């Protein structure tokens, strides 16, 4: 009788053990994922670069007694593929010290709040040169959880969410991503795993990304960009910096430059245009949007004297 009662008592517990073990495994795997993501951030070339560039940007100081001007070049893949940093640094030394911060897939809101965070952590360059296309200046999107982890301050997350039109669920995800390296960078981890495991993934991935490469309308640029540039200018000025907008090289059919110049004038923002629209032939572009090695060289050579 006692053994039967004991069996009847143990069976439910044995069944529950499965759930408990699964939950335990989940917790362990989550911890491992977090540790793994932190390790990956040290191993991954891109993540290491981003970490180092953020650190360099935070350490920048302006108004130096030796008269050297410090310039922070900020932007996304247009900057990464468009400017040869070592060549530019060599060209501009010793009068100008250039540091770069590149985060791919970013747009206006990412950079507004990224600069807020950098400034709050002590970054004080003399000049911030921001390279974004017109559509990226107009965009209300952000790089989501990744930006929340790498670029945004905790105190700005609600404002980011409001400006990006995020739901409460998406906002809560930003909060998790801010604290969790794994959650914030899981998309990059996934891309890396897939490219390692599946043949041809590196060629396929650009086709799977949701890129908006349509030219922006001139009316939208004139209507919205001045206020955005003015916000960025105000932010930079509050921290002793000047904002400069750097225009990417574009093919002939993209005629946003005029509108961007007008918008920048309204916002009292300096604009640099190393290459007029259509000045670079298609042969200097790798995909009609980003420059190839030759284009990068030419663009950098044109940029240096302007800086």
């Amino acid at each position, binding site marked *: 009788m006692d053994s039967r009662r004991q069996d009847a008592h143990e069976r439910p517990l044995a069944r529950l053990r*499965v759930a408990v*073990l699964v939950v335990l495994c989940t917790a362990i795997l989550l911890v491992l994922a977090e540790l793994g993501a932190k390790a990956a951030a040290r191993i991954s070339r891109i993540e290491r670069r981003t970490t180092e560039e953020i650190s360099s940007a935070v350490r920048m100081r302006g108004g130096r007694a030796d008269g050297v001007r410090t310039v922070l070049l900020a932007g996304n893949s247009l900057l990464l593929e468009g400017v040869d940093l070592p060549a530019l640094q060599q060209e501009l030394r010793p009068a100008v010290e250039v540091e770069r911060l590149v985060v791919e897939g970013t747009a206006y809101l990412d950079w507004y709040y990224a600069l807020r965070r950098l400034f709050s952590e002590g970054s004080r360059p003399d000049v911030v040169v921001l390279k974004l296309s017109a559509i990226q200046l107009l965009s209300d999107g952000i790089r989501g959880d990744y930006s929340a982890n790498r670029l945004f301050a905790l105190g700005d997350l609600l404002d980011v969410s409001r400006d990006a039109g995020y739901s409460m669920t998406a906002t809560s*995800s930003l909060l998790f991503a801010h604290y969790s390296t794994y959650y914030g960078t899981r998309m990059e981890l996934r891309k890396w795993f897939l490219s390692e495991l*599946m043949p041809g993934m590196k060629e396929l991935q650009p*086709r799977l990304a949701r890129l908006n490469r349509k030219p922006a309308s001139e009316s939208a640029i004139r209507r919205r960009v001045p206020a955005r540039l003015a916000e960025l200018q105000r932010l930079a000025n509050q921290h002793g910096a000047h904002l400069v907008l750097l225009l990417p090289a574009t093919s002939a059919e993209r005629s946003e430059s005029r509108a961007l110049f007008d918008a920048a004038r309204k916002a009292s923002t300096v604009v640099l245009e190393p290459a007029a629209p259509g000045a670079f032939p298609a042969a200097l572009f790798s995909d009609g949007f980003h420059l190839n090695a030759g284009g990068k060289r030419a663009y950098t050579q044109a940029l240096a004297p302007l800086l």
Partner: protein
Amino acid sequence: MFFDTPVYFVFLIPLVFIYWRLERKQQNVMLLAASYFFYGWWDWRFVSLILISTLVDFFAARYIANSANHWRRRALLILSLTLNFGFLGFFKYFNFFADSLASTLVALGLPAVSVTVLQILLPPGISFYTFQAVAYIVDVYFGKLEPADSLVDYALFISLFPHLIAGPIQRPSHLLPQVQHRRTLDPERITDGVMMILQGLFRKCVVADNCALLADAAFSGSLGGPSLGVGLIGVYAFSWQIYADFSGYSDIARGSAQLMGFHFMVNFRQPYLAVSLQDFWRRWHISLSSWLRDYLYIPLGGNRLGEVKTYRNLLATMLLGGLWHGANWTFVVWGGIHGLWLSMERLLGIKEPGGRSFVRDWVARIALFHLVCLTWIFFRAQNLGAARDYLAGMTVLRWEPHLLPAAIFLIAFSVPMFVIDLLMEARGEEYVLQFSKGRTRVWVGAGAVGLLLLFSGNLSNAFIYFQF
């Protein structure tokens, strides 16, 4: 809050722990408050809508049940149905019908009429809880169900959060008694709940979200120019996306309910293993297809009024079923194709499989899968023109090198889902390896978590059926 986000589990886990410390009535009150919080999290403005609908239906049902006056009972039924379908019609279909009317007038050469198009937001879950409410009031009217005595119990039946936003549409005879009676803490149910949630997350985050990348790329043109290769990859990817997305959601909903002692009806039973379209509709979105059968097809007469009217009823049911999915002619066409094919199966005397050969069954499965894929083109396309262009693109015979890695990508994420389905079909399970030894389930669960952590980092796609 989406089921695949951390905030959902921050909400769910403490709720379950507190829930099991309460008595039944306290549990229901707590769950009701939590469900309204869950709903308000989406958009607090629509809580009033579900409250109004709940109050009207609760009191209407009680008066219907307690009244002997036929006309009064009928009037109350009509009031309830008018309110429920009125809300649904206004929020979901006003702009669609306004636009369609304007376009039709222009197409007929009549003067263009300025029709006000309102900025109407779609209340989350309205298609689902409306059907649940209608089932309740109709069942009470026909005496199949006693009305709920407690407003809290009825409100919880309508708004219980795991099913509130995207089903499964619960039958009052199935869920209401569970709400009204004590739930017991059953370790096996808890285990089932955890495993269902994991299976659901795997389906949604690993299979659906990755297939979505391919489907979106194919339908938007970024995978390549129109061709048979792009077309097939896109439609196969979408077929697995929509199945994994919706069945994954249903799994998480059922699993969440299980954690609190509720059993929700099964919503999917390996639909891509169906051997006929009739079989498909007994396996796909079962809660909706059975609702349409019981509350639309059969009241229209079903197959009792002769062959012609049977076909009429089939077509009407599927057309309205298509329209239920969304305010777009593409859904109507999707439903129409299904209605015509079901009618054709009836005409040809195609019945349920029985004693068929293995080869015949698999030929039928593959053929049916491709028919269903064809209809998914209309489901996925933005409009009829886009669907037509997509189909036309599939007549172009061209192969591009990058389509090979795309095909490998598709196979990598769809085959696991297919294997899960084969196992569940063979073993008659509600989730994979349900009847296996505990140790096996632990390893499978841990494996699912591992795959989730590695492959779920896609841009967050909302569950497809949330838009319905």
